[in-house]
């Protein structure tokens, strides 16, 4: 039963990859969507089984076969669903299905074989992602972890004839490899320490230990795992690939680079919550990195002009929130935000896809504006998504973000809370800048704006040069709103953006924080049943205390963050709706800051100068021209020339004189015989 969940997408992949080019588009796209829906149906059934179990027993396990048996090391290919994995599989198959359906319309301009290739990649991605979240040990998780990286590479570079897309794919792959390397090291370290790779076994081995007070094995192992997570989930310092990943088709950005794959790092920490909470040093690093990433990406998002790049930085920023939650020990809050974020960020990405689709490839928001009338469905769903991500009370983002901020404050991390609330302001502002510049006002064609010509980032020129066709179209005549398949996905996701949060109404508002309680067993060691129930009870008790003691605090923090969200929206409305010249004036007043943000803090340039170029030079001049050409080729050529030289000496012996040969033969015989006779 459990194995069916990943196997359905794998079946879709196999069919589309092998026969896709001969199938009509409707069949290949429909098949891909159908297998996702089937997988979703099975997931719902599995989760329903899970719900009917008592909370401490909520685990369904299926061992497919023994994968590796080598001496003492035995590893089973085991799939396991617990409350955490249940949330993940519902998100992946549910939102995944919607995005597949959306894609059938979005990609309709591709030729048949390309269309099938796209859907085969998308199905393959879903398969690996499901393996990632269902795997019961580190190695199965790692298979999924690498697989989604591969699919991400393939899909970012889907339009590989375009150099920027091919480069972005390679960049994503290489940056991810760096993280994956650390991940492998962390896994090996855990195996050495605990002799097992199974999550539950490691958790129950760790549970009785005291948290590490100094930096030692557990801290090192978790830190290495976290480095892996920074690669996959686009955190400082390995976040640089995600904005470039927007070269891929927009539904891919929605599925892989917003809703599912990039949350794999958060999931991985949640999966090893017991382990991580025994390494306070790592937890501090996680929290600080998360907060720093959230703030930094938020500031960059404020000035970007590409609609998808703004969303990409917004994703990085929201992932930072999730890691902040993980780092302060609020695992439930982090996963809750992961789950709500999947809805509204997928909604926003698909909305931006609908805009790009309507404008025939235009992505620069300076060339948009006034699209509200022409694209009503897109506008309203995008608006709902923006309200949700901004944290307006009553929508999904409000509950989850508030939970994170409250937990951060309650755990005593006041500085991190301040950064979080500041990021929240930024989030509201840049999201509504996007909404207002895209949908409100008049239709514009001002990229590159003359007054900014000197500060134009090169990519904006590239986009313009690559998309000259839209200039030929009369302004409003060709606007067509999302076709039915796209509209369906948008509307469902917008509904989700409103409703998803009600699973986790905090105690302070009279709710039960249902999702928090649901997830709690996943964050404790469960193998010793009594211990697990004890901890669950403890968790419940803790929550109970929250109701009593900190209700006032939570409410006031909630008010603060709501006000911040509304202020952010108002600020955006004032600047970009009423007085657009203010934005230019601010930019002109702080040219240094503006340029710094526009160029993304020059992080790419710094990496290029400090890492990429030195590696290039070392590889090219040292390893290639030095080691390969001189040492390796030198050894081969040297062997040959030594033989050549010694033979040219030896060949002088071949004089051609028969008597000389006979003489040497004779002397040789005499010498040998003489030796044996007189020795």
């Amino acid at each position: 039963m459990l194995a069916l969940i990943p196997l359905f997408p794998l079946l879709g992949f196999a069919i589309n990859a092998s026969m896709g080019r001969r199938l009509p588009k409707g069949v290949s796209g429909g098949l891909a969507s159908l297998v996702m829906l089937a997988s979703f149906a099975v997931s719902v059934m599995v989760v329903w089984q899970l719900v009917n179990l008592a909370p401490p027993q909520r685990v369904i396990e299926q061992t497919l076969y023994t994968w590796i048996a080598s001496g003492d090391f035995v590893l089973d290919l085991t799939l396991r669903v617990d409350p955490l994995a249940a949330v993940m599989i519902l998100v992946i198959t549910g939102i995944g299905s919607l995005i597949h359906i959306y894609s059938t319309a979005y990609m309709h301009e591709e030729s048949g074989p390309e269309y099938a290739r796209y859907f085969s990649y998308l199905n393959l991605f879903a398969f690996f992602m499901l393996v990632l979240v269902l795997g019961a040990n580190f190695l199965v998780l790692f298979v999924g972890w690498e697989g989604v990286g591969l699919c991400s590479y393939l899909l970012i570079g889907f339009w590989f004839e375009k150099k920027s897309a091919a480069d972005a794919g390679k960049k994503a792959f290489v940056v991810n490899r760096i993280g994956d390397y650390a991940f492998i090291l962390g896994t090996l370290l855990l195996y050495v320490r605990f002799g097992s790779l199974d999550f539950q076994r490691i958790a129950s081995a760790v549970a009785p230990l005291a948290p590490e007070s100094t930096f030692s094995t557990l801290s090192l192992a978790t830190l290495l795992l976290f480095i892996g997570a920074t690669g996959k989930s686009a955190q400082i310092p390995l976040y640089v690939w995600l904005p470039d990943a927007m070269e891929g088709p927009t539904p891919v950005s929605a599925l892989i680079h917003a809703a599912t794959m990039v949350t794999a790092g958060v999931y991985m920490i949640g999966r090893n919550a017991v382990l991580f909470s025994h390494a306070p040093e790592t937890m501090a690093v996680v929290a600080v990195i998360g907060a720093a990433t959230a703030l930094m990406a938020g500031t960059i998002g404020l000035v970007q002009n590409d609609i998808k790049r703004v969303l990409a930085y917004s994703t990085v920023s929201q992932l930072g929130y999730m890691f902040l939650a993980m780092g302060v020990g609020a695992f439930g809050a982090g996963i809750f935000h992961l789950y709500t974020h999947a809805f509204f960020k997928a909604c926003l990405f698909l909305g931006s896809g609908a805009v790009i689709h309507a404008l025939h490839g235009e992505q620069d928001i300076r060339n948009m504006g006034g699209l509200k009338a022409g694209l009503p469905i897109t506008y309203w769903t995008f608006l709902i998504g923006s309200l949700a991500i901004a944290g307006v009370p009553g929508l999904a983002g409000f509950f989850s973000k508030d939970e994170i901020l409250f937990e951060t404050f309650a755990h005593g991390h006041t500085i991190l809370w301040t950064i979080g609330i500041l990021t929240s302001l930024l989030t509201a502002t840049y999201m509504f800048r996007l909404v207002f510049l895209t949908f409100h006002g008049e239709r514009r064609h001002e990229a590159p704006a003359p007054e900014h010509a000197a500060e134009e980032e090169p990519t904006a020129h590239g986009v313009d040069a690559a998309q000259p066709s839209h200039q030929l179209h009369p302004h409003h005549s060709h606007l067509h709103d999302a076709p039915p398949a796209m509209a369906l996905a948008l509307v469902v996701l917008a509904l989700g953006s409103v409703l998803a949060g009600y699973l986790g109404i905090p105690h302070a508002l009279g709710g039960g924080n249902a999702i928090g309680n649901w997830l709690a067993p996943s964050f404790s060691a469960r193998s010793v049943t009594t211990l697990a129930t004890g901890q669950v009870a403890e968790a419940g008790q803790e929550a109970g205390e929250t109701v009593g003691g900190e209700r006032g605090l939570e409410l006031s923090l909630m008010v603060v963050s709501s006000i911040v969200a509304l202020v952010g929206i108002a600020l955006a409305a004032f600047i970009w709706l009423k007085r657009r010249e203010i934005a230019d004036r601010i930019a002109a007043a702080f040219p240094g800051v503006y340029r710094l943000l526009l160029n993304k803090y020059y992080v790419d340039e710094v990496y290029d100068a400090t890492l990429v170029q030195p590696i290039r030079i070392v590889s090219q001049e040292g390893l290639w021209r030095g080691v390969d050409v001189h040492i390796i080729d030198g050894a081969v050529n040297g062997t040959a020339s030594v033989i050549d030289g010694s033979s040219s000496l030896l060949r002088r012996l071949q004089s051609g004189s028969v008597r000389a040969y006979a003489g040497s033969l004779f002397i040789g015989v005499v010498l040998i015989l003489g030796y044996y006779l007189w020795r």
Partner: protein
Amino acid sequence: MIPLSHYLVVSAIMFAIGTAGVFLRRNLITILLSIEIMLNAVNLSFVAFGRSQGTVDGQIITFFVMTVAAAEAAVGLAIVIALFRHRESLNPDAFTSLKW
């Protein structure tokens, strides 16, 4: 009875003559004849050893050597004739085209 050492001395002298012939003569046919002398020197010592040991082994091996020598002489002469047709010379120093 003539002692073994006498035979061996004769054999050594014949062998030395043959060797000297191989080295000193400039005619391929003479060189072949010198080789025959060396072979017969060896045959003589074999037979002498066989006689002094009281076995037939020396004589048997001598028959083999004679057979091989006959074959060698036939092949050698054939080669010499072929070479002579090619170069109009029997001087071994004329045949150096296999030299590098």
